[in-house]
C-alpha cells in the first residue's frame, strides 16, 4: 500500500518535471485547453446571469401602470391603495415622478441631462405603479383580464404588460442553453482530440524509454501511468487557466454593467460561480484530459514492443 502511494507520487512529480522541461509546449497546450473550456463556461455564466436578471422579476411578467399626468399625490395614493387590495397582485411598488426621473438619469449617459430637462419644461414623467401578479395569475390569459379590470380605474393613463418580452426572453435563454450544450459537447470532443494528440506525440518521443521499461519488467499499467497523469494534469491546468480567464472576462464586463445592476438593487449582474461549479469545471478539465490520455494510450502504446 505504501509502495502504491510512493509510485504515484514519483510519477506525479516526474510528470511535473517533464512539463517544466518543455515549458513552451506545455503552456501552448494548456492555453488551447483553457480557451476550449472557456467558451462553454462563458456561455454558462451568460445564461446564469440572464436568468438572474429574470429572477429579479422572479420570472414573472410585470405590469406597469402609468397614472394621468394631472393626478394629484392624494389621488395617486388612493389608486395605489386600491390596486394593492386586488387579490391577483402580490407586490405593488409606487414610483413617484421624481424616482422615475432618477432612474432615467442613471440610465442616461448624457452629461447635459439637466439642461435637456429644463428644455422640456420640468419632469415630463408621470407617477407610476409597478405590479407583480401572484403565481396563479402569471399567465397571459389572467394577465390580460387583470389589465382590463385595472384599466377601468379612474386616473390611470396607460397600462403596459411586459408579457411578450418575458416570454421571448425565456425562449431566447432556452435556445442559447441548447446551443451551449451542443457547443460544449463539440468542444469537449475537440479537447479530447487535442490532448489525445499531445499524448500520442509524447508516446512517440518516448519510444525508447517505453521499450526499455518493458524490457526490465515494467507492466502495461506502469508504462501508461505517466501518460494518464500527463493528460489529467494538462486538463486540470487548462481548467484553472480557463477559470482565470473567466474571472478576467467577468471583471471586464462588470464595471459597465454596475449602473444597470443598481437598478435591480443588485451588487452585480454577472453571475458569481459557486464553489461546486468551480469544482465542476476543474473536474471536467481533469476528467477530459484523463479520458483523452486513456484513449490515446489504448491506441498507440501497445504498438511499441521491445525488439
Amino acid at each position, binding site marked *: 500500500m*505504501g*509502495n*502504491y502511494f*510512493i*509510485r504515484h507520487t*514519483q510519477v506525479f512529480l516526474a510528470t511535473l518535471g517533464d512539463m517544466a522541461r518543455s515549458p513552451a509546449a506545455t503552456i501552448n497546450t494548456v492555453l488551447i485547453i483553457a480557451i476550449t473550456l472557456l467558451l462553454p463556461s462563458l456561455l454558462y455564466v451568460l445564461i446564469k446571469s440572464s436568468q438572474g436578471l429574470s429572477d429579479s422579476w422572479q420570472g414573472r411578467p410585470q405590469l406597469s401602470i402609468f397614472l394621468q399626468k394631472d393626478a394629484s399625490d392624494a389621488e395617486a395614493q388612493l389608486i395605489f391603495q386600491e390596486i394593492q387590495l386586488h387579490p391577483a397582485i402580490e407586490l405593488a411598488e409606487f414610483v413617484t415622478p421624481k424616482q422615475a426621473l432618477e432612474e432615467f438619469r442613471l440610465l442616461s449617459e448624457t452629461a447635459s441631462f439637466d439642461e435637456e430637462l429644463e428644455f422640456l419644461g420640468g419632469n415630463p414623467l408621470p407617477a407610476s405603479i409597478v405590479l407583480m401578479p401572484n403565481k396563479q395569475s402569471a399567465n397571459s390569459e389572467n394577465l390580460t383580464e387583470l389589465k382590463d379590470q385595472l384599466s377601468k380605474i379612474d386616473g390611470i393613463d396607460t397600462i403596459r404588460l411586459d408579457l411578450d418580452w418575458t416570454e421571448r426572453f425565456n425562449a431566447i435563454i432556452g435556445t442559447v442553453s441548447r446551443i451551449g450544450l451542443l457547443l460544449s459537447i463539440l468542444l469537449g470532443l475537440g479537447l479530447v482530440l487535442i490532448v489525445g494528440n499531445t499524448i500520442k506525440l509524447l508516446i512517440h518521443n518516448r519510444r*525508447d*524509454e517505453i*521499450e*526499455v*521499461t*518493458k*524490457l*526490465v*519488467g*515494467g*507492466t*502495461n499499467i*506502469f508504462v501508461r501511468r505517466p501518460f494518464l497523469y500527463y493528460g489529467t494534469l494538462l486538463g486540470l491546468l487548462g481548467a484553472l487557466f480557463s477559470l482565470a480567464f473567466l474571472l478576467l472576462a467577468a471583471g471586464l464586463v462588470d464595471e459597465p454593467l454596475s449602473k444597470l445592476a443598481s437598478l435591480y438593487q443588485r451588487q452585480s449582474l454577472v453571475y458569481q460561480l459557486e464553489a461546486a461549479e468551480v469544482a465542476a469545471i476543474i473536474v471536467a478539465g481533469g476528467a477530459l484530459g484523463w479520458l483523452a490520455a486513456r484513449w490515446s494510450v489504448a491506441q498507440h502504446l501497445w504498438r511499441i*514492443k*521491445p*525488439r
Partner: protein
Amino acid sequence: MIKLSHINKRYPNGHEALKDVSFHIEPGEMVFLAGHSGAGKSTLFKLITRIEKPTSGQIFIDKKNVSRLSEAKVPFLRREIGVIFQDHKLLMDRTVFDNVALPLIVIGMPHDEIKKRVRAALGKVGLSGKESQKPITLSGGEQQRVGIARAVINRPSILLADEPTGNLDEALSDEIIDIFADFNQVGVTVLIATHDLRQVERLAKRTLHLEQGQLIGDYQHNSQENNAGNIQPGTSQEQQDG
C-alpha cells in the same frame, strides 16, 4: 532453471533462426552460448525473455512455461531475469543512475532503498561516482558495465548476457566476464552469448554451440583435469523430461 525442448523459431520473413533446439541449464550453472554471427544466439535470448515467441516447442524458466505465459505475466518473468543486451538498450538522455535504477522504479521500491542499491551495483562494476553522467559520455566498456549494473540491480536468479565483450579489448573483456563469474559464485545462473572463444577457453565452462540455428554441440569443459581447449561432449545435462 532454463529448459528448452524442440524449439523452432521462424521469423515472419520465413527465416528459420532456430531449428529443434533442446537443452537444460541447471540452477547455479554458468554456460557459454557460442556460434558465428547469425547463428541464432540473440534469438534464443529473445525467446527466453518472451520478446519473441517460438514457432513451436516449449521453454521453461524455473518451471514456468514461458510460451504459455499470459501477456500480463510477462513483466514478472522479466523481473526474474537480468539481461545485458547486445545493443545495450541504455537510455542515452537519462543519467547512469536513472538507467540502473529503472528495474527498481518499475517495482515501486522506495527511493532511499533504490539509491543504496544503485550505489552498490555501480561499485560492483567499477563505475562509482558516475551516477549523474549520461551514458553517451562514457566509453563503450563503461556503457557495457552500466548495462550489467542494471541487469543485476534487482538481484535476479538468472543473468543473460548477449555479446557483453563485443568491442572490448582483452583486459576489459576478462574483467567483465569475471564480474559474471562472481555473480555465478553466489548462485546466479549465468548464460553468456559470445563468439569470443578466448573467454570460453579461459573460464572452461559448459558451452552450447549453435550453428545456423541448430545446436551442434553441448560441451562440458573440465578445467580441473583438462587444459583449456580440450573439450568433452556433455552427458550429464541430457535429461529428457516428459
